[in-house]
């Protein structure tokens, strides 16, 4: 049982969204009766971007709503995909007649609920398209499985597809650039300590004082491998090596990096990790174009981190650098 700064565990998402809007009333409006945050000035005359999923990953998704990134973020219950109704209401709230693009992380629930929402929206004559993000290299990828999870690499999809949409691109063009990001982004994560869902009695896994989980996702689920705790350098080496080999990334590639904290990791430790990421990439002659170190896609108070690499070309670089009002991705 973990202590938490909450009131009634059933109200955490609603109370959180009330706190978000209270903090930045000029930036957000919340839809009545649905846990959806939309840009205060929505609908904007462009292709709209909607993302969402379970809560507990803050600043994902609400933190990425704003000019140059998302138009709406749909917040499900903690670690639970939102319902089709909620996604559908988000779509309606941001559609300006230019179509709505959905960024879906590859979880059975998210895919199904978002697709059902698309069916509902299309019945209303709203054009939609989507991308399914699946950057987690820890999970086996095959047509016989549900495939890989979408994790921190999703942030790059928000930024890059958001930037293209802001430039007035068509729904099809936004979809294509999003797919290009997905094709070029890879992540692997680990945890030293699990998190706990407010409404549940226990953590979804427990670890001994000398154990850690490698290949962890962002829903408090156990990882793919449990080992004894290693040094920061050894851990980073495991993550970065698996990420590099997967795409694969190779010498003279230019990459953007996210060293992402899982929620309970001191920033100090993320920087210690980044030092090693930098060293490994340097040794492999992989060029770092931009690095983000911080909490971008968390798992409540899980302690651990993930490393994401995105292979860049000129088009992706320009969109990554494009202006956005979202301070997290500047």
């Amino acid at each position, binding site marked *: 049982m973990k202590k938490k700064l909450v009131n009634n565990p059933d109200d955490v998402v609603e109370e959180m969204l009330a706190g978000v809007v209270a903090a930045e009333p000029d930036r957000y409006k919340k839809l009545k009766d649905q846990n959806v945050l939309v840009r205060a000035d929505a609908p904007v005359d462009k292709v709209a971007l909607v993302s969402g999923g379970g809560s507990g990953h803050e600043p994902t998704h609400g933190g990425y709503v704003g000019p140059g990134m998302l138009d709406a973020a749909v917040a499900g219950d903690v*670690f639970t995909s939102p*319902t089709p109704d909620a996604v559908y209401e988000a779509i309606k709230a941001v559609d300006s007649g230019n179509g709505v693009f959905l960024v879906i992380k590859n*979880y059975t629930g998210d895919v199904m609920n978002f697709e059902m929402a698309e069916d509902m929206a299309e019945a209303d004559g709203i054009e939609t398209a989507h991308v399914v993000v699946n950057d987690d290299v820890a*999970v086996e990828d095959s047509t016989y499985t549900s495939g890989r999870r979408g994790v921190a690499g999703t942030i790059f999809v928000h930024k890059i597809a958001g930037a293209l949409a802001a430039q007035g691109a068509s729904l099809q063009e936004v979809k294509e650039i999003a797919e290009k990001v997905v094709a070029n982004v890879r992540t692997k994560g680990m945890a030293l300590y699990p998190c706990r*869902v407010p409404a*549940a009695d226990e953590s979804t896994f427990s670890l001994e004082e000398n154990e850690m989980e490698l290949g962890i996702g962002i829903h408090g689920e156990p990882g793919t491998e449990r080992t004894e705790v290693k040094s920061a350098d050894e851990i980073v080496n495991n993550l970065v090596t698996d990420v590099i080999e997967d795409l694969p990334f190779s010498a003279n590639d230019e990459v953007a990096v996210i060293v992402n904290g899982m929620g309970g990791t001191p920033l100090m430790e993320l920087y210690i990790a980044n030092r090693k990421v930098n060293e490994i990439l340097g040794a492999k002659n992989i060029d770092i174009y931009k690095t983000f170190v911080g909490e971008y896609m968390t798992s409540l108070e899980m302690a651990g981190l993930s490393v994401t690499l995105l292979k860049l070309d000129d088009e992706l670089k320009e969109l990554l650098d494009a202006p956005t009002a979202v301070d997290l991705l500047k």
Partner: protein
Amino acid sequence: MNKTEEVFNKIADKIIDNKQYLTKLDSAIGDGDHGINMARGFSEVKEEFESAEFDSNSAVVKKVAMTLISNVGGASGPLYGTAFLQASKVMEEDLSLKNAVKIGEAVIEGIKMRGKAEQGDKTMLDAIIPAVNALKEDYEAGVELEEALQDCLEAAEEGKESTIPLVAKKGRASYLGERSKGHQDPGATSSYMIIETIIKEII
């Protein structure tokens, strides 16, 4: 409150009573929310029943389907929602073994269409498919309704337990790969509970 409403009320109670148990099963190989999700949806079903009036059994089942879709979220929401929606479409007002088989087949089709899983993937289908197969065999063999339902219940229970040694291929448990072995699937467990409650209410 008609009979179908009564049955779903009982299902709701069963699921709500087992909220922590289902969540615990999901903690082992998923994200620890299956019981929470299902209990949220079925609490809402109970509330809907308080105000709504239904003119047919299939209207009740359709209402259950829509309520689950709008309130459960996760994987189980659209899956059970679609399952009951499909069931409501083929359901006749008078219960017969023949219609039960048809309903079962519609349920399986709905879940497969939505989730793209197969038997053996360590999902709710592993409880449901054997249960429906048992019904169907008994129907074809001319077995009486009550006995067929008994067979169906046994098949569902075996099916639920058959998930323990399986490696998950769909849903969150699939991320665990080999480590998903040795745990009973939470969705197969809630499916068994639903089948069990229906059958016990009918018999």
